[in-house]
């Protein structure tokens, strides 16, 4: 699959956007502006971007794993809305109810993450089923971490997807760690092997290479769209940061970590590659970064200026009313 220069520049821009946005989130969290805990995506940018660029706008993304923000951004949620949601403000995508773990946006076909890791895969199969019932050729792509694959819910989702031959692509972002537990302790050689007993096409790839992810997920989506059923893709990446901000990572070997940082940074690698190939110039890069910087600052301003939710709104949205038979709509 040949990737033209315009597309390549787009990949790089998206990855740089995620990186810059998350750097800012990190600082805002350290300054105490963001409540709760924050999980960042360092090392996952290539897989998030490659995967989402392979999708059409009307394909569903059901977000899993614990690396979330980059996926929301890649699916097209404006930075200001994501940032305001992290702040718990009214201007957030979920008006402050959901926070980092639950950004969802039905209009953009983004199904929010389940804070219980691995609870998003069966709903993803259901989303694919709904599309099929409605007669569209849209697909559902769902992500999960290596850790999440240990849950029965993940395996059940594979059983169901293959039982009804539904248009789902399972992307396993294996960053080799579930908090402190290494994926090397799990027995499959590749986590995509979990697709084998279900006779699903499965492939393990270098997920820090954005083009490789784009190609592989595009093929899987193509099959799903053509009625050829589900696939499993293992996207191998390095977790180039802590599990969450504040995790001291005492369980991690420092030398190995530094090596990974030097070798597996998807953003740095792609930038160097495009520069070396003459696809971008330093000047174009500077312009790109400047525009991104501006967008990120605007997102911060938007979040800061957005009002706190009115306390009374805490009681809204639990139910849709009136209930059936109580007037309107019945």
């Amino acid at each position: 699959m040949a990737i033209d220069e315009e597309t390549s520049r787009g990949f790089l821009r998206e990855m740089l956007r995620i990186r810059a946005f998350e750097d800012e989130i990190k600082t805002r969290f350290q300054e105490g502006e963001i409540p709760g805990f924050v999980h960042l995506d360092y090392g996952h940018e290539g897989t998030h971007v490659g995967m989402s660029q392979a999708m059409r706008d009307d394909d569903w993304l059901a977000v899993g794993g614990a690396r979330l923000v980059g996926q929301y951004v890649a699916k097209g949620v404006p930075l200001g809305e994501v940032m305001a949601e992290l702040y718990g403000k009214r201007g957030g995508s979920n008006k402050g109810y959901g926070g980092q773990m639950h950004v969802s946006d039905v209009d953009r076909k983004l199904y929010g993450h389940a804070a219980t890791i691995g609870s998003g895969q069966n709903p993803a199969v259901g989303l694919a089923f709904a599309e099929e019932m409605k007669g569209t050729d849209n697909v559902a792509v769902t992500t999960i971490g290596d850790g999440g694959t240990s849950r029965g819910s993940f395996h059940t989702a594979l059983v169901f997807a293959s039982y009804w031959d539904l248009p789902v692509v399972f992307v396993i972002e294996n960053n080799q760690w579930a908090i402190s537990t290494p994926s090397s302790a799990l027995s499959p050689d590749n986590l995509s092997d979990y697709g084998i007993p279900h006779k699903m096409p499965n492939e393990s790839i270098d997920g820090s290479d954005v083009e490789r992810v784009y190609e592989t997920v595009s093929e899987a989506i193509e099959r799903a769209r053509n009625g050829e059923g589900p696939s499993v893709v293992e996207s191998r990446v390095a977790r180039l940061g802590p599990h969450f901000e504040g995790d001291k990572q005492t369980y991690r070997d420092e030398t190995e970590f530094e090596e990974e940082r030097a070798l597996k940074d998807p953003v740095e690698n792609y930038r160097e590659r495009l520069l070396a190939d003459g696809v971008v110039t330093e000047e174009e890069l500077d312009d790109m970064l400047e525009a991104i910087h501006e967008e990120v600052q605007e997102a911060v301003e938007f979040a800061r200026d957005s009002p706190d939710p009115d306390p009374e709104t805490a009681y809204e949205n639990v139910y849709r009313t009136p209930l059936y038979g109580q007037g309107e709509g019945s």
Partner: protein
Amino acid sequence: MTREITYIEAIAEALGEELERDDDVVLFGEDVEEFGGNFGETAGLHERFGSDRVRNTPLSEIGIAGMALGAAVGGIRPVAELQFADFAATAGDEVFNQIPKQPYVSGGRLSAPLTIFAPSGAGIGAGAQHSQSVHSWIGNVPGWVVVTATTPYDAKGLLKSSIRDDNPVFFLPHKMLSETKGEVPDEEYTLPLGESAVEREGEDVTVVATQVMFHRAKEAAADLDLDVELVNPRTFAPLDTDTIAESVEKTGHLVVVDETVERYGTQGYIANEIVENNFFSLDGPPKTIGVKDVPIPVSPVLEQEVLPSVERIKAGIESVF
């Protein structure tokens, strides 16, 4: 002699002492080894007791809870950790249908002396799936002993007892209390399960509360011109209603504050026990205060709105007069 330690240190000490005391005690869960648990509750234990006794598991609560059941029936004493109490639901069948019922359906032939350790409660802006208080869910299934911890003293004494108890025990520390400090004896001690504690004596009104709500009720009491008696149930199931009834006998008024949602929450159960059995001790209707019937939102403004505040507790206490 006593010393001041934090709640989480008290928990780590309890775990360490019980692992030391009884070779059958085994601790497992996600990230309990070098990482030391999400709140530092297992820090240093893997180093001290090694991989046989302190073990990481893959990410699956079904595995954690279900294995604990088998291991307990098979003769060891597992302490199985869920990183957040909310995740009890991801092992729903094990937690609601299997563990609490096995001793009963076996006609008493099996015992399941296991402890599930699961931090609960709201306050850190972690959202609807990381902030619930689940003692009303768990307490609803007969067979579980449900224990909460309000102070470092409680945390240590009750956790040690939970591990030694021959029933399945669901032990619920509150994540917002992790760094709170309190006096804990130097020498070893345990606290009885199934007994409420009168933590502050008073003549005018009985306030029943645990965990963060206990601390808020204490603050409310200090602000009021009323002589408040504070009762900490410590164990939600089985519930020691005698101590609460005795207190109401003395004060004539009852307020129950808890972090479970008001609809079908523990507050209603406790109040009902007193109304049904000690109606004539009451000088007026009891008052129940809990989380309004909504999931816990992320925004700090919304989160504090739905949790009972010191002000709401004060108003609730005043409302019974």
